[in-house]
């Protein structure tokens, strides 16, 4: 009797995902006994993340592909695994003090983060449309829940509802796009698709192009690029701060990798026709993101818009479609992780018992009252604005470099002009902190762990600004 060949699976390379899944379940299980005190869960999940992060480096001879080329572990995905585990860990650290204060008691919170991380890892190393779809959905579903984890808070509910509906809607487009791609090329493997297009065995170009447009929508939604960004500000505002930070970094990074893999490796040939679209999207994303941010008075919304504009810059790297682009995205997301978690750390620090103090007007006079925190905030703002000598600048330099190398000068000029605009609202916060007198006294409770997170972030931001070389080398392999 003939026996079905089992696909080759390299478990070592899958280690991070596996470990995290296991630990996720473990956390769920522990939650049964944990009761009020969640420290155990925190501890467990942190261990899981650390192990996953470490195990990411276990596999030596990269790249390794499993499941018949549906899942590949290369340097890019390893690096991103690092980003994911790191950012998830920071999220959990931020939550330790945030959750009790804001009445988030659910233990599955931590499990969800872990599962979400699994999804991201899968997404970042998926080389098959099905796998990508799977990854995206795992991530999204976890996020829908995380966004609404504050069950008794209307804003949180609304956030998750909006995210969920629009997310599902977008998924529809995404899947449709994938279906058409599959139909056009006869395979769901990215490599296969590439070959098909390359060797001209495409059933119908119309379907192919239609598919890629639909994909743009799908991914565009996940990375929150204009005009598919509109969920972002609302969801960012509504969700609990640590989750917001988490959303702004991890899932976005994962989606970007997938985006990059699909467009830069699977269908680069048709690039000639889709990079104009992507350029339009990128420019719109930068412009709308910045314009939107200027008028915001709520720090989380402001950061949401700013993150939209950052996606605009990142799209440039995808448009560039060169190896530089991939590593640029990697580096950028790493730097971005530091900045965002630092910023949100401060946002959380400035929360009070009763309110979260999200109005930026509350930052007035911080330079006098909390010089240290103000200084950190300044660093993050400047870094987000791409000012040297901070991580943001190196990252921007990298991205723009990737684009200039391919000769997208106009795009780059637009980008830099946008970053001038963006500087305006980053400066606005500095102005508030140092140059305005505070209206009201805040009774802050500076909590150690969050402070530690901020400290790590500051260190990272400066380190990646002054001595970026180690990380650059990681990304450039």
């Amino acid at each position, binding site marked *: 009797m003939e026996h079905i060949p089992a696909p080759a699976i390299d478990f070592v390379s899958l280690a991070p995902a596996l470990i995290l899944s296991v630990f996720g379940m473990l956390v769920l299980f522990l939650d049964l006994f944990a009761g009020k005190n969640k420290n155990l869960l925190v501890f467990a999940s942190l261990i899981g993340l650390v192990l996953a992060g470490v195990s990411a480096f276990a596999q030596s001879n990269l790249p390794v592909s499993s499941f018949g080329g549906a899942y590949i572990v290369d340097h890019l995905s390893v690096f991103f695994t690092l980003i994911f585990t790191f950012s998830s860990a920071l999220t959990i650290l931020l939550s330790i003090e945030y959750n009790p204060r804001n009445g988030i008691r659910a233990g599955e919170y931590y499990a969800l983060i872990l599962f979400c991380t699994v999804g991201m890892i899968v997404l970042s190393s998926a080389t098959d*449309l*099905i796998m990508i*779809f*799977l990854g995206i*959905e795992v991530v999204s*579903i976890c996020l*829908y*829940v995380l966004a*609404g984890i504050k*069950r*008794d*808070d*209307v*804003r949180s*509910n*609304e*956030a*998750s*509802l*909006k995210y*969920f*509906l629009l997310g*599902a*809607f977008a*998924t*529809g487009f995404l*899947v*449709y796009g*994938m*279906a*058409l791609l*599959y*139909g056009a090329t*006869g*395979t*769901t493997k990215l490599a296969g698709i590439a070959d098909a297009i390359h060797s001209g065995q495409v059933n119908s170009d119309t379907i192919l192009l239609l598919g890629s447009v639909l994909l743009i929508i799908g991914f565009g939604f996940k990375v929150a690029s204009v005009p598919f960004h509109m969920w972002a*500000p*609302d*969801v960012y*505002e*509504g969700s609990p701060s640590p989750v917001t930070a988490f959303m702004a970094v991890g899932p976005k990074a994962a989606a970007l990798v997938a985006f990059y893999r699909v467009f830069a490796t699977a269908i680069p040939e048709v690039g000639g026709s889709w990079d104009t679209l992507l350029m339009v999207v990128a420019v719109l994303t930068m412009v709308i993101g910045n314009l939107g941010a200027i008028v915001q008075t709520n720090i989380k*919304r402001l950061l949401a818009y700013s993150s939209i504009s950052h996606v605009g810059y990142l799209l440039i790297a995808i448009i560039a479609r060169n190896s530089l682009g991939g590593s640029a995205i990697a580096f950028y997301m790493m730097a971005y992780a530091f900045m965002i978690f630092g910023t949100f750390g401060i946002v959380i620090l400035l929360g009070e018992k009763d309110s979260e103090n999200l109005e930026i007007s509350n930052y007035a006079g911080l330079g006098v009252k909390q010089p240290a925190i103000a200084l950190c905030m300044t660093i993050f703002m400047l870094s987000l604005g791409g000012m040297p000598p901070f991580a943001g600048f190196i990252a921007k330099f990298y991205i723009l470099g990737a684009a200039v190398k391919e000769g997208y000068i106009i795009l780059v000029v637009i980008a830099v002009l946008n970053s001038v605009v963006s500087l305006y609202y980053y400066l606005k916060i500095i102005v508030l902190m140092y140059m305005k007198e505070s209206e009201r006294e805040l009774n802050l409770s500076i909590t150690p762990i969050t402070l530690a997170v901020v400290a790590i972030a500051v260190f990272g931001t400066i380190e990646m600004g002054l001595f970026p070389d180690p990380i650059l080398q990681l990304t450039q392999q």
Partner: protein
Amino acid sequence: MDGFVPLNHYLLLSATLFVIGVLGVLLRRNVIVVFMSVEIMLNAVNISLIAFDHYLNNSDGQVFSFMVMCVAAAEVSVGLAIIIAMFRNKPTVNLDEFNILKW
């Protein structure tokens, strides 16, 4: 031979269904209905997946469509949970009443 339905018809069908789903999302106010429209979209996609699968006679399409199905199922459960959680705080299913978060 006769009785043979060309691929395009399937594609047309799925496209139509998809558009219907989209319109449903755009036009209906009731959360549940909107949610169902989304499901319609997904199933429309399934149709074309199967059609392609049959046409290209390799099994990827079927696998994919199964994936879509179970993911849809998962989404349904989560989605309904969210809607219920929300209904607790704000007893309505009218989508347009949920816009505290804007601008």
